[in-house]
């Protein structure tokens, strides 16, 4: 019965999204003066950047209205393809499948990299482990190790925590860190970066991962292959588990959308990116 | 030679501020049928329910005085309520069978006292049902639901259920008011048959019924006992004007 509610809610949300989307397209024609409306949706990882930049941009240009929704990377790309938003946020690169599908419907998925994001491997502060190799991380998440003392740590069972299989963060972890090996089935799956951090904080034997922006002093990030998960190391390309954060548009951005994306890529915009705990593009 | 079985001494009862039983002194004789009659609301049911401490279940009820069963005060702080209720059984105005089988209804009293032996239970169930004149009607369906019986049968089964405890006294509160004339007649005859075994106290609105079956009659009016005596005497030469009026149907 709960299910029916979920489905009805989804239908309602879709309907509203379409309605809102249609409205926007009409208004977009207002031209390149700083007046108008931008809508975006997609990755919850990109959400804080988008939101903070939008606020600042609207402060400077009071006649501009930017609305930001989440939904996840796939939603962002889907919405661009459906033409319901101007910007689709994605914490991963568009897949070949998606690009082809877009082409079929006459849409050119154009990638604007607005920030970099490193995924930090985190453990509980009580854990004495400070460095793991990618191979060790893979062995841990495939269930080959079950106690930290096998890795030189304390005698404590390893509690595996991962982001849910449908999150963008999982995808990056699965592809970059795990090299596409299946995570063992007893791994706990949590639904958000915050849930991952909270769970690691509360669980002495836990290991998990989260975007650099979500780190707090309550959890301990470990080195990967001897490299600290810092912004500098991500930028220089030394840190292994990193990804790009994208704002997709239909073709190269134009008009007010271009002004907005240029704003994010400006020094001022990139400061906001850093403030949100992400890493600037250059 | 008649023996006094129950005596009430200065029995007073209130429901919150409502003074319902006014300082009653009353006697029930062993192996006799005593009828309680009187207009509606005068306290007959309340008096009856005092004898097996059913009023204890009503939080608003306050009771003073004594009720002596064979000299023991049933309201004594040391008295065991469940023991009182086993010795003084009750049958209600409307048949109230449990939604269980006939067998389990009748065996209930024994079962809650921990009797598990099937032979004992079988014997008691059969004997009680025979005593209540319903054995022949139900012996082939003991394990069907008691709710499938007719109203009159249900009431006799309730009498059997009470008899299974082998009580000294049986309290009947208008036991036939919900029944048809034929079932009523059967229960009246049953009462007369039972009085060799058990003392009966019956509340009834049916004056003729009181006349037919009882040995003693008590007339209550507004919480007082106005008149008590052998039924024949009360019905023919009532001492009190109000008794006479009630019996002749002037009020009621």
């Amino acid at each position, binding site marked *: 019965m709960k299910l029916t509610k979920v*489905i009805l809610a989804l239908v309602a949300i879709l309907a509203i999204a379409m309605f809102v989307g249609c409205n926007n397209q009409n208004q977009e024609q207002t031209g390149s003066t700083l007046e108008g409306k931008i809508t975006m949706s997609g990755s919850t990882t990109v959400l804080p950047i988008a939101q903070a930049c939008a606020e600042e941009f609207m402060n400077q240009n009071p006649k501009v209205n930017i609305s930001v929704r989440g939904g996840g990377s796939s939603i962002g790309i*889907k919405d661009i393809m459906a033409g319901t938003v101007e910007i689709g946020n994605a914490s991963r690169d568009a897949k070949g499948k998606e690009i082809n599908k877009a082409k079929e419907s006459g849409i050119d998925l154009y990638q604007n990299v607005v920030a970099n994001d490193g995924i930090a491997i985190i453990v509980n502060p009580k854990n004495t482990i400070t460095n793991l190799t990618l191979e060790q991380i893979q062995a841990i998440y495939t269930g080959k190790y079950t106690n930290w003392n096998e890795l030189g740590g304390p005698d404590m069972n390893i509690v595996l925590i991962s982001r849910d299989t449908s999150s963008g963060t999982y995808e990056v972890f699965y592809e970059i860190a795990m090299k596409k090996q299946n995570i063992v089935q007893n791994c*706990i799956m949590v*639904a958000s970066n915050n849930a991952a951090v909270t769970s690691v904080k509360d669980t002495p034997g836990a290991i998990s991962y989260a975007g650099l922006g979500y780190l707090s002093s309550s959890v301990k990030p470990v080195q990967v292959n001897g490299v600290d998960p810092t912004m500098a190391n991500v930028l220089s390309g030394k840190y292994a588990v990193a990804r790009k954060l994208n704002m997709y548009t239909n073709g190269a951005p134009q008009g007010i959308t271009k002004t907005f994306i240029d704003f994010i890529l400006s020094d001022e915009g990139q400061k906001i990116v850093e403030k949100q705990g992400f890493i600037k593009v250059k | 030679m008649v023996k006094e079985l129950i005596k009430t001494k200065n029995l007073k009862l209130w429901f919150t501020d409502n003074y319902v039983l006014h300082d009653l002194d009353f006697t029930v004789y062993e192996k006799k049928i005593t009828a309680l009659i009187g207009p509606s609301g005068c306290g007959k049911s309340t008096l009856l329910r005092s004898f097996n401490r059913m009023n204890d*279940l009503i939080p608003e009820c306050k009771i003073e005085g004594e009720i002596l069963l064979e000299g023991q005060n049933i309201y004594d702080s040391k008295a065991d309520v*469940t023991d009182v209720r086993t010795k003084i059984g009750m049958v*209600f105005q409307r048949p*109230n069978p449990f939604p269980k089988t006939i067998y389990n209804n009748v065996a*209930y009293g024994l079962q809650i006292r921990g009797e598990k032996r099937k032979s004992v239970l079988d014997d008691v169930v059969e004997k009680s049902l025979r005593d209540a004149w319903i054995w022949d009607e139900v012996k082939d369906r003991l394990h069907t639901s008691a709710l499938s019986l007719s109203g009159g049968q249900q009431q006799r089964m309730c009498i059997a259920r009470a008899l299974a405890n082998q009580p000294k006294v049986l309290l009947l509160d208008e036991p036939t008011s919900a029944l048809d004339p034929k079932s009523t007649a059967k229960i009246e005859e049953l009462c007369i048959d039972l009085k060799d075994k058990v003392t009966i106290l019956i509340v009834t609105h049916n004056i003729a019924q009181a006349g037919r079956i009882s040995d003693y009659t008590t007339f209550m009016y507004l919480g007082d006992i106005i008149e008590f005596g052998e039924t024949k005497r009360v019905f023919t030469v009532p001492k009190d004007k109000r008794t006479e009026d009630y019996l002749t149907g002037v009020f009621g």
Partner: protein
Amino acid sequence: MKVFKEILFKAVTYFAAIFSILALFGIILTLFMEGIPMFQEVSLREFLFSSAWYPTNEHQSFGALALFFGSLAVTIGALVIAVPIGLGTAVYISEIAGSRTKEIIKPMIELLAGIPSVVYGLFGMAFLAPFLIRNIGIDSGLNIFTASIVLGIMIIPIISSMSEDALSTVPRALREASYGLGATRWETITRVVIPSAKTGIIGSFVLGFGRAIGETMVVIMVAGGAAQIPSSVFDPVRPLTTSIAVEMAETVLGSIHFHSLFALAIMLFIITFITNLFTELFLFKKVK
């Protein structure tokens, strides 16, 4: 005029009834239309008997067995907790508490029923899980045990209020009959009152079951989300609802993964349908 009113009344109630039936069929139709296409690429055997749920990996697999066990485990756990406590509460309120105590307890339990499930989830995640790690020495607090407690607390009000309704409709005459035969309060409650209210009480368990198995937010937050067949109550599990709700947000419309989530929904639907059917049959028979 009178005739017209009569017809109007009939029509209005008729359409009201038709509407809910249409809604039901609409939902069932959606489920099957979106769920069946999965079986073009995934065999029914894999779906029902494999426990490998890897919907987004390179080599996708759609074995729902672990998810089925996940749902079952937390629901049974919740009932184990909520049935005795809910029934106990109902008995206390209806049979034992004085009218003043009743006035205090009843609204508090109703308040418990009014708490949104996400709040229960937060309680489980932020308080109960770490509490259990510290106090009973388990490795992780996100597991069947924690989820069962939280879900159990959540369905206590359902079981207690519905059971209490059932208990309070047991006629006074039956209680008096029992007391009149020398039964104590305990004997009266256990041997007469509860058996007489059996239909309503079992109904409350079924309702609680339905609520627990359909609950989504709480299990997302505290059940651990691991798609495995559990071997202990302290194992994390992934109930069907978790997969449906969490994965629907990110899946590509029309993909097998998308259809597989509807197939999970069909499974959930069939479980509740069979449960309802069985109770209906069972209760119906007993009442007759």
